[in-house]
């Protein structure tokens, strides 16, 4: 079946370094790809999305890259801060009713001081 998966379960970075979180997807019909951040004990929080006809989108300190050729998505966080420590989920949305999202299993980002 269709799936969204992640390459690494845990990523440790030094404060101030850039972080890159990767995600593989398999559903070519997805029209949006999204990144969510989940802090311990909280619900997921939207970070940024990218439409399937785009290759790159930038937000505040974050950049999402989409490579449709290899079905790969990445989230880059610039100047990683302790507050960035969380689990990051990629998700995909297939066009149609309900705006249903399919989530990957998540990557734990740990920021070391």
């Amino acid at each position, binding site marked *: 079946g269709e799936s*969204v998966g992640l390459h690494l*379960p845990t990523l440790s970075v030094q404060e101030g370094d850039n972080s890159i979180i990767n995600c593989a997807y398999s559903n070519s019909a997805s029209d*949006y790809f*999204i990144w969510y951040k989940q802090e311990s*004990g*909280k*619900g*997921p*929080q*939207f970070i940024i*999305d990218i439409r399937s006809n785009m290759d790159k989108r930038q937000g505040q300190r974050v950049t999402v890259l989409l490579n449709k050729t290899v079905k790969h998505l990445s989230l880059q966080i610039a100047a990683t801060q302790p507050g960035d420590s969380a689990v990051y*989920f990629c*998700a995909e*949305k297939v066009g149609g*009713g*309900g*705006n*249903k*999202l*399919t*989530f*990957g*299993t*998540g990557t734990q980002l740990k920021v070391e001081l």
Partner: protein
Amino acid sequence: NAGVTQTPKFRILKIGQSMTLQCTQDMNHNYMYWYRQDPGMGLKLIYYSVGAGITDKGEVPNGYNVSRSTTEDFPLRLELAAPSQTSVYFCASSLRDRNTEAFFGQGTRLTVV
């Protein structure tokens, strides 16, 4: 605005008991969702609703029921609790026209013993 509010935050059920997880949102969002999150996993969609009076099954609906009598409320019912339903449950909502940005509640941690 409170956003998405879930009650209770924690609950322990015995096998065979029933309960209702409450969810309400004050953002006038059309779409509402129920997800479950098992340890170390991503979120799986249980049920969703595109508006009052309309509900539909997600990926893992068995053992659950929902209703959407108002725009604000979307309760999730467990009729005969089973250990496999031990999980963290998240309610979310989104605007129809901003469909990748779902707003999540804080979650309900349910244990079935």
